[in-house]
């Protein structure tokens, strides 16, 4: 078949989208060839910032993988920059010599970063922020931490600054104008943003004009016109872009700022089109993805014989900095013919401003709470009169008509044509219809079929709400299971953020991570309390009201509300005096039941709560401490008699068990931790179904972990063999600390190990001595505060209120 030849110069997001549309409308219509100056496939440039900050990897942001080009029969020349277009011969020639004839040509060369031509601008270490090469160069320099200077506080500059900060660099942003992001934000929102970024450790200098970039062999700093000198090993120029139109100009095509196109995206040559950031349509060059995708759709339509017309776009902006919500759209300059509605809540950090003209919204700036951004944007684009709802307009869509505050109500109320995904121009109707028509149930499927939320991802919440409205309970929005109903975050995210954001109290966690309830619930509070105890052993004050009753009163609650008490018997060893003391306590307090436990100790059951301190006092006198049989923490270390008595014993298993228990008692862990030490492979201490176990052999100590003998039954895995008892202790402690730092609350060690991977655990504990040492030292540090016997503390009066009634009413006397 002799198909028409379509050649595309550039392999960015706009031509990628155009081809998708084209292949859907008219598969096989053209023989397609793409020249890409970058040595890559089509990836999502909007997501460069998350790659820079480490929140995503390159693989996560690929739009079209190699398969896609193969499946659609597209010839992709990578690393091939086109040097010339011959409009007479209708060919393009790449700098590497490849020549391709065309019937139709699309120029999609994108834009070039504007580099201020100050002295020193060519020094190594001066970078732009346009493509993955730039990001890789930045990451390379960021490896040595150090200082970075970003010139330009627009969208890209600030995202670059945030990313570099996340990579551990010291970042200063210099900006020529008095306020940051002045094209998208009014001064009030700019102030809030500047404050939020400063709190994140990014220094911002406004009204700063760059005089020169300093350095001899490479960048060493920046000099400002006011004489200030800033040190830095990297300078990012993010002062703007200009359309890459030289190739078109050289070929004699009409070029103004960009390559001039009509409403059908056609240039002055009827066989040549321009698309993306290199094009200029009705005097405007667009730099955001949404309008480019709109025009891509028009071009695809034209290429298969349609007559679609592009009418220009109203754009909106969101900043992709984790934890900062910012939305701006339209025109928000002040003017005599304009009115404005403003809402400020300084404490909550919320600022909303709507600019009205002729009773219609023409501009919106939202900071802090951007939930209603798409609603305002929709009202703006459709030019809806707002007279009727003016009084409550600023409070958002859910306040209209006195309806409920169900967050989904706002989305449910949106009209079918309301735009949900700004990047890809996907409206609500398309998402809802596609979900129903194709039976979609996951976010990834919706992304795949509709493109909604597939670019910058900031509309993900809206798309999920739509799925939830459309599918009801059949939709599970989170691949990651949230900790509980109080948050959407999973355990791993919460743990990571506690450390990353240095959150050191439960209220701080709930505030910063936007808990949905005022003081959590019985699921999340004990988990948060554990994470804080574990991560900040020095600083955090244990919140007893967030502990389960057993850990609050240091005994085990029974079905009738009485308690059971288990003192420690180190390694399962006891003596006549200990047994005598237990017998006396049982008699004195008329304890109804005494039982030998599976962990080699003695349980006294049926003790009234008010008797607990007195029981502990008597046990304490005999030398007993709490066995922590109630704790998500170290429980027992079961042992056999080893070389002390056994004729098969290879090592002193009892001694090692006692040593481990004395070293580790009192430590809190994500779930209970039970251990065993067997003196020989006959394994009388049943160490191979414990959380952590040791099998002694002639040549040393085989350390086991991740066994289970409860709801699940599972033999242990071998961590490794060590030669000495000292090593055995060190490795076990390090393993425990690794589990303490990474485990989800109530996740036993075998489940954690399955999640993390056995090899990774072996690598960190057995072969990475530095890691192992670090874990060991952090455990030792936390033990300094943890090893306090809770029973003797309470005998001496701590938490007295826990153990007696507040008041005993004598009602007979009142009659």
């Amino acid at each position, binding site marked *: 078949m002799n198909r028409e030849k379509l050649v595309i110069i550039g392999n960015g997001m706009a031509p990628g989208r155009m081809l998708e549309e084209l292949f859907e409308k008219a598969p096989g219509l053209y023989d397609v060839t793409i020249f890409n100056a970058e040595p890559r496939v089509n990836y999502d440039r909007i997501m460069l910032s998350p790659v820079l900050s480490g929140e995503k990897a390159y693989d996560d942001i690929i739009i079209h993988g190699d398969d896609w080009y193969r499946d659609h029969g597209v010839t992709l020349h990578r690393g091939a920059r086109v040097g010339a277009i011959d409009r007479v011969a209708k060919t393009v020639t790449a700098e590497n010599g490849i020549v391709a004839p065309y019937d139709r040509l699309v120029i999609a060369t994108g834009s070039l970063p504007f580099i201020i031509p100050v002295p020193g601008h060519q020094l190594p270490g001066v970078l732009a922020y346009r493509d993955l090469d730039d990001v890789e160069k930045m990451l390379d320099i960021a490896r040595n931490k150090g200082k970075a200077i970003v010139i330009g506080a627009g969208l890209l500059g600030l995202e670059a600054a945030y990313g570099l900060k996340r990579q551990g660099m010291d970042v200063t942003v210099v900006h020529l104008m008095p306020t940051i992001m002045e094209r998208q934000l009014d001064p009030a929102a700019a102030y809030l943003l500047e404050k939020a970024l400063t709190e994140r450790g990014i220094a911002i200098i406004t009204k700063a004009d760059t005089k020169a970039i300093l350095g001899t062999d490479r960048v060493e700093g920046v000099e400002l016109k006011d004489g200030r000198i800033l040190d830095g090993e990297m300078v990012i120029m993010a002062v703007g872009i200009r359309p890459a139109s030289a190739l078109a100009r050289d070929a004699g095509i009409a070029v103004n700022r960009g390559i001039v196109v009509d409403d059908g995206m056609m240039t002055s040559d009827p066989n040549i089109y321009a698309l993306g950031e290199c094009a200029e349509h009705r005097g405007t060059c667009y730099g955001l993805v949404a309008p480019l995708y709109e025009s891509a759709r028009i071009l695809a339509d034209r290429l298969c014989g349609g007559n679609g017309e592009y009418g220009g776009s109203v754009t909106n902006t969101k900043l992709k900095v984790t934890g900062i919500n910012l939305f701006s759209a339209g025109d928000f300059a002040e003017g005599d013919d304009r009115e404005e509605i403003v809402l400020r809540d300084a404490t909550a950090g919320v600022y909303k401003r709507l600019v009205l003209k002729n009773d219609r919204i023409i501009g919106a700036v939202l900071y802090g709470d951007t939930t209603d951004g798409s609603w305002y944007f929709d009202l703006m684009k459709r030019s809806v009169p707002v007279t009727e709802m003016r009084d409550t307009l600023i409070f958002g869509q859910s306040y209209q008509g006195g309806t409920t505050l169900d967050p989904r109500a706002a989305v449910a109320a949106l009209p079918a044509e309301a735009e949900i995904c700004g990047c890809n121009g996907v409206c609500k109707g398309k998402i809802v219809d596609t979900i129903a028509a194709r039976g979609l149930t996951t976010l990834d499927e919706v992304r795949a079929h509709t493109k909604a939320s597939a670019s910058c991802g900031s509309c993900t919440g809206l798309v999920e709400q739509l799925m939830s409205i459309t599918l009801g309970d059949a939709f599970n929005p989170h691949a990651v299971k949230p900790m509980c109903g109080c948050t959407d975050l999973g355990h791993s995210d919460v743990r990571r953020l506690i450390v990353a954001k240095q959150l050191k109290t439960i209220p701080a966690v709930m505030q910063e991570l936007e808990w949905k309830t005022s003081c959590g619930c019985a699921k999340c509070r004990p988990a948060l309390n554990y994470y804080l105890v574990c991560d900040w052993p020095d600083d955090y004050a244990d919140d007893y009201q967030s502990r389960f009753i057993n850990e609050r009163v240091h005994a085990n609650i029974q079905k009738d509300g009485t308690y059971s008490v288990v003192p420690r018997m180190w390694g399962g060893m006891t003596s006549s005096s200990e047994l005598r003391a237990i017998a006396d306590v049982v008699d004195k307090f008329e304890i109804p039941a005494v039982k030998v436990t599976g962990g080699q100790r003695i349980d006294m059951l049926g003790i009234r709560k008010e008797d607990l301190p007195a029981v502990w006092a008597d046990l304490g006198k005999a030398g007993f401490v709490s066995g922590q049989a109630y704790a998500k923490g170290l429980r027992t270390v079961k042992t056999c008699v080893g070389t002390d008595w056994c004729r098969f014993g290879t090592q002193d298993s009892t001694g090692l068990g006692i040593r481990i228990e004395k070293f580790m008692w009192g430590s809190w862990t994500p779930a209970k931790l039970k251990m065993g030490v067997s003196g020989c492979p006959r394994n009388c201490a049943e160490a191979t179904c414990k959380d952590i176990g040791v099998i002694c052999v002639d040549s040393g100590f085989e350390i086991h972990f991740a066994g289970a003998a409860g709801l699940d039954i599972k033999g242990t895995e071998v961590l490794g063999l060590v030669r000495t008892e000292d090593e055995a202790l060190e490795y076990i402690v390090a393993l425990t600390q690794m589990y303490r730092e990474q485990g989800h609350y109530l996740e036993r060690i075998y489940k954690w190990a399955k999640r993390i991977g056995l090899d990774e655990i072996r690598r960190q504990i057995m072969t990475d001595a530095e890691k192992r040492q670090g874990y060991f030292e952090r455990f030792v540090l936390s033990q300094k505060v943890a090893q306090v016997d809770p029973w003797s503390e309470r005998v001496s009066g701590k938490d007295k209120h826990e153990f007696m*009634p507040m008041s005993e*009413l004598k009602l007979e006397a009142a009659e």
Partner: protein
Amino acid sequence: MNTHMNSWFDVGSISDIPRRGARCVTTGTMTVAVFRTADDKVFALEDKCPHRKGPLSQGIVHDGCVTCPLHNWVISLETGRAQGADEGETLSFPVRLEGDRILLSLMPQTAEAVIAAE
């Protein structure tokens, strides 16, 4: 009806109860759990979960509810009713603050309980 059913008893000071916690008041025939929430509101329920009679005073207090320590039923401090899918109700009693003193009435405020008590 006993006269004491209509009286207010001073059972202690609000500072006797930890925030997000509870203390018990015994009457000889019954134990009442008096709760103090994070925002210093007080509530009183019979210390018995409607499920298996677990001592609610020992539970974790969050917002306006307590989670029973035995099987994690969540009980409303205000109404004594089980929340979510669980069904059941425990007796709730009027309680109020006068300065920092806690005054408790033993006249149950649950509709069914009032009838039962008469």
